[in-house]
């Protein structure tokens, strides 16, 4: 193995990642930990770029560093019981934890080495590249997400919807922010417009370049967060009934496409020939809206105060 400057960069990135993760986890000051975690996310998106995964770099910068960080920072406002220290565990339990860690680390290493060196048989990558022409898009990651493994993405949207329903069921939204000054308010308007435009571009570009529904949805969610921080009353969210439909739009578009294919004597989620590109764009648009509003609602932290309390009573807060 020849050592080049690239490997030096790799080592530097790896050490920085580990250092940031360690200091984010070890300190007792949670605020410091959350800020370090956001820095960790940004660095991780650099690592994705280095490992030639630009789709992931975009998603990580928007979601891992941005939205997760925003959610965690917001959670700092909630009261936290004193006791950020390490739990006093009995020695036997400590030993058991250590053993479990060693076991898990060994399995992790084994799985990794097998995955990298065990090169017997066909790799899925060959199949994916071989069929890229027929997938309707030229970005291989988008092709995998929305064509070859569309079923996984459908289920992922279901996970997202389930999490959102959980958040909605847990109570009312947080107190909104106070309206900021004229300057910040104007800035929020500008940035929101810009975010919506970039999201539209990313959605379109996802077919042939890094981008796609997830990155675009995350940016739209960021726009909702901006509006929220800017003290806007409705955060750009539509009224309750429309919002409920939009939350389910991604899955609905997916399922509908899947079932319509079965009427054309195709398999579930098999796109008719020559129409794959258009169908993928349609599904991605719906998925983008679902992702955006789900993540936006997550930032609100509960069902919007405008929603009528029809079913179970919300928490008395």
């Amino acid at each position, binding site marked *: 193995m020849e*050592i080049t400057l*690239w*490997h030096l960069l*790799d*080592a530097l990135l*790896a050490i920085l*990642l*580990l250092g940031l*993760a360690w200091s984010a*986890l070890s300190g007792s000051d*949670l605020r410091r930990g*959350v800020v370090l975690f956001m820095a*960790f*996310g940004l660095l*991780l998106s650099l*690592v994705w770029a280095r*490992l*030639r*995964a630009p789709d*992931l770099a975009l998603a990580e910068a928007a*979601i*891992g560093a941005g939205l*997760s960080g925003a959610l*965690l920072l*917001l*959670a700092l406002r*909630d009261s*936290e019981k004193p006791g950020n*220290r*390490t*739990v006093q565990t009995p020695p036997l339990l400590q030993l058991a*934890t250590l053993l479990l*860690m060693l076991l*898990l680390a060994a399995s*992790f290493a084994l799985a*990794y080495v097998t995955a*990298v060196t065990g090169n017997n048989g066909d*790799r*899925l*990558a060959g199949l994916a*590249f071989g069929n890229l022409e027929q997938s309707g898009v030229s970005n*291989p*990651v988008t*092709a*995998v*997400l929305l064509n070859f*493994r569309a079923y996984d993405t459908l289920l*992922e949207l279901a996970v*997202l919807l389930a*999490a959102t329903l959980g*958040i909605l069921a*847990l*109570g009312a939204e947080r107190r909104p922010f106070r309206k900021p000054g004229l300057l910040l308010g104007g800035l929020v308007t500008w940035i929101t417009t810009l975010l919506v435009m970039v999201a539209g571009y990313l959605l379109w570009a996802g077919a042939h370049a890094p981008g796609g529904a*997830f990155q675009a949805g995350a940016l739209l969610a960021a726009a909702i967060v901006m509006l929220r921080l800017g003290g806007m009353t409705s955060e750009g969210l539509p009224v309750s009934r429309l919002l409920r439909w939009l939350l389910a739009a991604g899955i609905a578009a997916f399922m509908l496409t899947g079932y319509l294919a079965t009427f054309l004597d195709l398999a579930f989620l098999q796109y008719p020939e020559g129409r794959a590109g258009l169908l993928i764009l349609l599904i991605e648009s719906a998925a983008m809206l679902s992702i955006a509003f*789900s*993540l936006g609602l*997550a930032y609100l*932290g509960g069902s919007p105060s405008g929603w009528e309390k029809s079913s179970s009573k919300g*928490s008395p*807060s």
Partner: protein
Amino acid sequence: MILTQLIFGITGGLLFAIGLRSALVRESLLARILAVNISGAGVFLALVAIAYRGLEETPDPIPHALVLTGIVVAVSATALALALRRRLEEADDE
């Protein structure tokens, strides 16, 4: 195995381990949620390192799609966990 894969594979394993350990021993729920996120990032890193084929070669897109899915699932799980934590704290206050 390429050296880059080795470096990031080890880093991923270490991140997974220190994240998991913190998630097990910390008392604060917020610290635990943060730790699980870092642990997950370690798994993502290992997956992307597996997909890496060198500077000139196009990497394997399937682990990339997996990780992209994983990032979105991770943030939705984090959001749900934070909402649950908030509800717990409220319940304690009452």
